[in-house]
């Protein structure tokens, strides 16, 4: 998206970029190729337990510079769900 240059201070938010960033993050936790991770499958089904899922919030905060609830991955249990949530948060901010 975003064919024209963004105005200063605004942020380009790209849903697919968020999705692929999250997929590679999860793949790196699981030490699996990113192609093995599907965005509509619950993270717990890949063996990401609930307590570990909390750590995802730290990585997300670092990446996007926003504060998210530590229970992000509990309330949004798939990569798709987290993507939508982050997209909404980031576009609301932009």
């Amino acid at each position, binding site marked *: 998206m975003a064919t024209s240059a963004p105005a200063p201070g605004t942020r380009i938010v790209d849903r697919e970029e968020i999705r692929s960033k999250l997929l590679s993050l999860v793949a790196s936790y*699981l030490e699996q190729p990113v192609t093995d991770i599907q965005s509509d499958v619950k993270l717990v089904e890949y*063996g990401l337990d609930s307590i570990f899922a909390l750590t995802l919030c*730290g990585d997300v905060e670092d990446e996007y510079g926003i504060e998210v609830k*530590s229970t992000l991955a509990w309330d949004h*249990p798939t990569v798709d769900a987290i993507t939508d949530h982050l997209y909404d948060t980031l576009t609301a901010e932009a």
Partner: protein
Amino acid sequence: MRHSAYRVAEEFDHLLGDPRDAGRLFSHARSLVLDEREEFPLEICRELDLLGLPAHYVPVAHGGAMRAFEDTLQIMRGIARRDLTVAIAHGKTFLGAASVWVAGDPRQSRDLGAEVLRGTPVSWGLTEREHGSDLLAGEVCAERTADGYRVTGEKWLINNATRGDLVCVLARTAPEGGSRGFSVLMIDKRGLGPGSFRTLPAARLHGIRGADISGVAFTGAEVGRSALIGAEGDGLEIVLKSLQLTRILCAALSLGALDQALDMATGYALARHNHGTPLVGLPQSRRLLARSYADLLTAEALTVFAARALHTLPGELSTVSAVTKFLVPTLAEQALGRLSRLVGTRSLLLGDTFEHGRFQKVLRDHRIVGIFDGSSVINLNSLVNQFPLLARAHRRGEVDEAGLHAAAGLADRLPELDPGRLELLPRRGSSVLHAVPAAVAELRSLAAAGEVPASLARRAVELAEVVDEVIEQIGRHKPVPVAAPARSFGLAENYARCFAAAAALQLWLRNRSAVDSAATHGLWESGLWLECTLTTLLRRLRPTRTEHLVAGGGEDPEAVVDQLVEPLLAQHAAGQLPSLLPYSRLGALV
């Protein structure tokens, strides 16, 4: 300065009288008899109710007397100094109630407050027979009904499951489970339909033999909607936050156990002669006493800091509570082992030959403390999961100056306890560790001014180096879900030791001028206890074999620790228990 939490605890303990007097209700003699009979300390618990202990489990906001968490903790330590079984049996009500203090609505909190004040025992049902600490594997389920829930399943190895009229239960409210599939229900057994629950026989135990460690099985037990604490699906979050409170309270049990054992061992070392010399005059016995005392002081400093941090640094508590619940029972267990070697055969005797058999009882009773409410492994694993956040936050190095200052400064006023501000993750890391460089600089200038020995400043500098190393290793640690590698656990242990050292540093710096040096017999002046704490923690953080150095006539790196024997004996002679801050012998007031 008399620290108010210690004064409050001492006043409560005074009401119970001298435990050596067999005519008192809460006497050593009674505790030992009940233990031998594996009998629940019912009369003693009733006495504690009459004396108002339950009010200390209820925050002031909900009608109780708990203003400062550390007051409750030090009172509980006082009970544990007498008998761990009683402390665990009675104190369970706080654990059972904690979820309501964390997430209950005003009415639930007020109602529970009133129940607790009346002396109603509250139990906390988390674990199940097939799923110990794996809470999300729990099979107890609560199905929604028209006006509440129908609960079915069994909770097992639950403290006070039989005696507790109220049982706070973690139950599955979504059949598929998961992080949002569990809820907390406060179940009033008195209101359940006949036949819809039964209690399970108490397990026979190695230690705390009189405690009611039993279970409860529900079969279609109907509870009203008002039993639900927080929102449906919030169960795991509520339990994890409640554990931040209860894990710190558990430190009181370890401290009380070690207080007792060190006091008994000191008395023994003074009275017992070998080849005409009292044990306390023999270098190896002195070392055993001194090392044990150093461990107690380290554990005590960490606990004091943690209990205050609950008020002042609530966002950092996921780390503080895991560090405390791992390290304090571990230090106590280590020291108890050392003191057993000093006391020898008598540490195993039942009957009247040595302290009415109290020593063997405290050894047995303490074993459970490192296991329940999240074992050491669980707490270390929780730290391992926090590594990425802790490492990043450490690089940013933010310090919550006001929160840190008030956590360490005993004269500072504590803000009201607000469990709603607890966080599941330490977003800002650990202020106390981020503040190590500044604290070390402060100590170095004190050394330059001749106020503390240069050796103390050297230890502090070494600590700063070790903290950097540990953080660097943590930063390189690759997060692994579920099966964290064994070496990560060693790293988490080291993180905990660094944390304890940093907390001790702050505690000494912030209070050194205010503490009455005569009443503490030289522990605080020139930083003696701090140097001993740093020395013993650093010996674990940077293990080196030093026997050959000593054998070759070199300096013994632990020699400074032996200096603790003097204050230990002075406290003993002054009718005090061994402690960082003055605390009189059981049943007496300073």
